[in-house]
């Protein structure tokens, strides 16, 4: 219910801004692409269950639009299980240097085959083109094997999109798309990149930041646990003892 209301509010904002954008797009011909998102902050509160962010924008003429959302990058270790003495244990591993914690892509039409792979590669448009560099030099075969496994695992967690989203054009100039962030979305600074593609090449691009952070009670707890971990540990024990004692005493009387 709350989510739907929020979405409706986001749409209303989007519409208002879009009409503004129309006027503006007419005036400012020099800029071939403008876009923005309905919210630049995703607040993970105690009741957070995932959220939608609406991206909208305008282009000055024909062309296709691609939207790429990337979460903060970090090193990741991928491990493969092998059967050793009948038991499946983690055996081989490969470490990747910079892996986006979250990745989603939406386009107004399928780009594979239309746009040169080198272009898609450069802008990391599409799961096949996300940049993941292994920390060590290893055989290309192994890299692609572990890379595919990592993407598959990320998809299972809902952190990488399983399919290319749809960028919808409203008329000739205006477009919009919805990006979904699940409840387990990693925190940090995200980038939302919008590309305008004409004749098989990117002619214009815009990048918008998006912050995902814990807000309120859950943020306080997280900070407490990170910054004053010893005191946090003692607090946890004290709370547990108090709860146990209380229960033991209350139930004795009844």
């Amino acid at each position, binding site marked *: 219910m709350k989510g739907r209301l929020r979405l409706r509010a986001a749409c209303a904002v989007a519409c208002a801004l879009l009409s503004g954008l129309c006027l503006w797009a007419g005036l400012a011909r020099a800029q071939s692409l403008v876009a923005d998102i309905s919210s630049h902050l995703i607040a993970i509160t*105690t009741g957070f269950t995932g959220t939608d962010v609406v991206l909208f924008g305008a282009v000055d003429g024909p062309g296709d639009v691609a939207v790429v959302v990337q979460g903060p990058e*970090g090193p990741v270790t991928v491990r493969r299980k092998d059967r050793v003495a009948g038991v499946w244990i983690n055996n081989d591993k490969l470490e990747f240097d910079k892996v986006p914690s979250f990745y989603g892509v939406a386009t107004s039409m399928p780009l594979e085959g239309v746009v040169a792979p080198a272009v898609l590669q450069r802008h990391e448009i599409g799961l096949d083109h996300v940049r993941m560099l292994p920390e060590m030099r290893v055989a290309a075969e192994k890299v692609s094997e572990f890379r595919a496994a990592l993407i*598959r695992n990320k998809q299972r967690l809902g952190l990488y999109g399983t399919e290319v989203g749809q960028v919808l054009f409203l008329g000739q100039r205006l477009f919009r798309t919805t990006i979904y962030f699940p409840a387990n979305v990693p925190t940090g600074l995200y980038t939302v990149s919008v590309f305008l593609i004409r004749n098989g090449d990117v002619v214009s691009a815009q990048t918008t930041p998006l912050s995902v952070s814990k807000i309120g009670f859950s943020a306080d*707890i997280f900070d407490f*646990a990170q910054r004053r971990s010893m005191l946090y540990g003692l607090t946890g024990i004290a709370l547990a*003892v108090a709860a*146990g004692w209380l229960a*033991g005493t209350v139930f004795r009387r009844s």
Partner: protein
Amino acid sequence: MQVYLPIAEISVNALLLLGLGGLVGFLSGLFGVGGGFLMTPLLIFIGVPPAVAVGTQANQLVGASVSGVLAHWRKRNVDIKMGVFMLAGGGLGTVLGVWIFGRLQALGQIDLVISITYVVFLGTVSSLMLTESVRTMLRGRKAGAASRGKLHHHTWLHGLPFKTRFNRSRLYISGLLPVGIGFVGGLLVAIMGIGGGFLLVPAMIYLLGMPTALVAGTSLFQIIFTTGIAAFLQAASNRTVDIMLALLLLVGGVIGAQFGTRAGAHLRGEQARALLALMVLAVAVKLLVDLLVTPEDLYSFTATVGS
């Protein structure tokens, strides 16, 4: 009602957690064990990262043990001296266990070790417990309360040095025995996220020869401290204790435990032991199967530790 768990970083239904806590609490009250061996796998199953499940479980067990020990305390069913001896070993085992846990986490083998220790310890203890209790039941049926056999077997365990008198338990045994049992228990607290009651209780009965009435209370008394040490160390060094999760489980757990304790009064000792053994055995078999069956995905990933 969804709740976002700040350390586990997932969103879970609060009622589900209360229910899980209540169910495991009931069983732990019924059988006089902490129930960690059920809760940790369940938490992992609903998506809590294994390390957070183990750390949080240690914290949760502190509360559950306090609530459980109160009832035994009132009936004077706690042998404090024995508990303190076990604690000496338990503290040491816990500290070592948390360190091992951190090392294994860095090596990417923690899940394997958790699974294997579960299978080995749970499997062995439950099989032994099951055969013993079934034998007792059969014997009881055949000849009523016939001879219990020799009350006191003399083994090499009784030849150990540092003989100490434990008045409450009416035992005169080597002090090294409870210390050693406590040490193993402490290791398990840290590595498996369990109180270790399922191991301590039979060890205290069969190895120490303690009166059954004192065993549950004394082991709980000892578990309060080992789980407390483990919870503190996991929070301080691995940052894997989720207070929110622990409290939700506790609320369900302590209430469930009270009902379980009452229900337990209607169970005969060997019946309770047989049921507990079956349950533990089921968990061990499940984990063993998971180790042997080809996993759905051979690959897994973790954010690289130490960055």
